[in-house]
């Protein structure tokens, strides 16, 4: 599995854009660094929770929400660096098995926000770890049509699901998250009540 893979590699923003087109009313938790900035640029919405600090905690925030709002499908946009930092959470999710959690990992194999220092995801397959931990649906994709097909399927299936998307290192020119942290909380909570 290690080494060059077949197909055309997307940028994270391209892959993220394809997913954001498929999201309707699902709450979305997005990891720190450029992923949050790119999501804000591509499709800002009240039900986006931009986690600007606390690296490693994205999936656990999504898990806490999913456990307490079983009627909603919770989507997490994560990165390889975040997953590696909070890897214990893969075990927690695999053990608790929330049906309504879709954990997407944009894996560019680097800490892109801080200058492309390599992560261990180049040699450690996060999808295999997720499968071993007990995620119900696990897919590893890189081409746009596969990304769209698998994400659609996961939104409609019982999870927990883990979608590993291999992306290139390109970063979208995107501003810092504009909403103040407490404003992110207020509008997200309001969206959870009204939607």
């Amino acid at each position, binding site marked *: 599995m290690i080494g060059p893979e077949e197909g055309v590699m997307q940028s994270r923003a391209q892959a993220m854009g394809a997913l954001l087109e498929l999201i309707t009313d699902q*709450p979305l*938790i997005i990891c720190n660094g450029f992923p949050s900035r790119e999501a804000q640029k591509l499709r800002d919405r009240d039900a986006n*929770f931009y*986690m*600007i*600090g*606390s690296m*490693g*905690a994205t999936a*656990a*925030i*999504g*898990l*806490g*929400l*999913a*456990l*307490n*709002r079983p009627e909603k499908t919770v989507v997490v946009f994560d990165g390889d660096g975040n997953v590696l930092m*909070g890897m*214990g*959470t893969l*075990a*927690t999710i695999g053990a*608790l098995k929330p049906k309504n959690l879709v954990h997407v990992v944009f894996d560019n194999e680097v800490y892109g926000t801080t200058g492309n220092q390599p992560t261990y995801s180049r040699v450690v397959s996060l999808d295999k770890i997720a499968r071993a931990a007990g995620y119900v649906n696990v897919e590893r994709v890189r081409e746009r049509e596969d990304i769209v097909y698998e994400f659609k399927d996961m939104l409609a299936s019982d999870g927990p699901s883990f979608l590993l998307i291999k992306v290139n290192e390109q970063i979208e020119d995107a501003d810092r998250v504009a909403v103040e*942290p*407490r404003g*992110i*909380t207020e509008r*997200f*909570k309001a969206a*959870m*009540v009204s939607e």
Partner: protein
Amino acid sequence: MIDSDDFVKALQDIGLDFFTGVPDTILGGIIADLTEKHLYTPAVREDEAVAMAAGAYLGGKVPAVLMQNSGLGNALNILESLNLIYQIPCILLVSWRGFEGKDAPEHLVMGQTMTQLLDTVKIPHRTLSAETVVDDLQWTAKTFMEKRIPLALLLKKGIVKTVQP
């Protein structure tokens, strides 16, 4: 000594409805009672527990995180860079290992410095006692509602009944 069942009921009475954390012997009775009532979701690290509690709060719950005070070290970054700036509150039920220097060596530094640490990082705290428990929980509810930040209730050995390990 407070019965763990009474303590859990009192926590529920002030509105707490999601409990997660990492165990400690001092907290064993509370966790056993919460588990029996299907109210407790175990976490693997204290920062993960705080993150799960944050997700629960975003979903409309009033969360509590149980941990040994050594876990405060693990949770410090998320408490600072998520909870405090996003105004995401949670109630930290923290066992006070190393109180007055009477514990295993690994607990002594945190046991001695914990309250100063909490003051430094601006997390309000109160030490629970059997005599003041009603007042302590009123303070907890009031601080949670008014400040919307994490706050800590510190539990010394022998305040709430525990189970034998």
